[in-house]
């Protein structure tokens, strides 16, 4: 019984995270300015990382953790590079 509840709530959580990613993607497309797009790209990375973690909870496979860690690392680096680009017009000075 509790296993069924857990399975349904993980499914619901995954649907919510997908809906959150859809909201972020919509804002990413409509903008209006470059900083809004970068902000939503960062949020999209975090939401994708959370989605991978919920896949790990669903399957009970610890390998998803490594993928989530790599996604959060890449998201951080890319957002910092993009923010620096917005500020200065170039990434490496």
């Amino acid at each position, binding site marked *: 019984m509790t296993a069924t509840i857990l*399975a349904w709530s993980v499914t619901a*959580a995954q649907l919510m995270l997908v809906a959150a990613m859809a*909201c972020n993607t919509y*804002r990413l497309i409509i903008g209006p300015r470059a900083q809004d797009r970068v902000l939503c790209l*960062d949020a999209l990375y*975090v939401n994708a990382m*959370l989605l991978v973690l*919920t896949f790990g909870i669903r399957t009970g496979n610890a390998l998803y953790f490594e993928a989530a860690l790599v996604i959060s690392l890449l998201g951080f680096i890319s957002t910092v590079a993009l923010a620096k680009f917005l500020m200065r017009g170039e990434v490496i000075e």
Partner: protein
Amino acid sequence: MSHAENLPAWAALLVAFLVLAGAGLTLIGAIGTLRFRSFFERVHAPTLGTSWGTGAIVVASMILFSVLGSRPVLHEVLIGVFISVTTPVTLMLLARAALYRDRSEGSSDVPPDHLADKPDER
């Protein structure tokens, strides 16, 4: 979810609640990015997902793997620490970039440069 059959009831319910709470907070934050009107209001929205949204899901994952493996699994803490340290850095960089861009366009929505020039704020 065959592995969840061996899970005690309290752990299953706790994990279910935490996962739902985390995903719900993240969704509310994402809705916030759509609803707010200016960039500086939108900066606040993703922090819902990156603070307790991430925290709840990470704790859920820790509880699940600790109870299943019957030894404490702590490496998910790294994701929580990493996200909570890096998100402020990215948001701060973005806010400064946005402020710089708005100022260089002469926008009236942001305070002018050289706050220090105003004597009453020292």
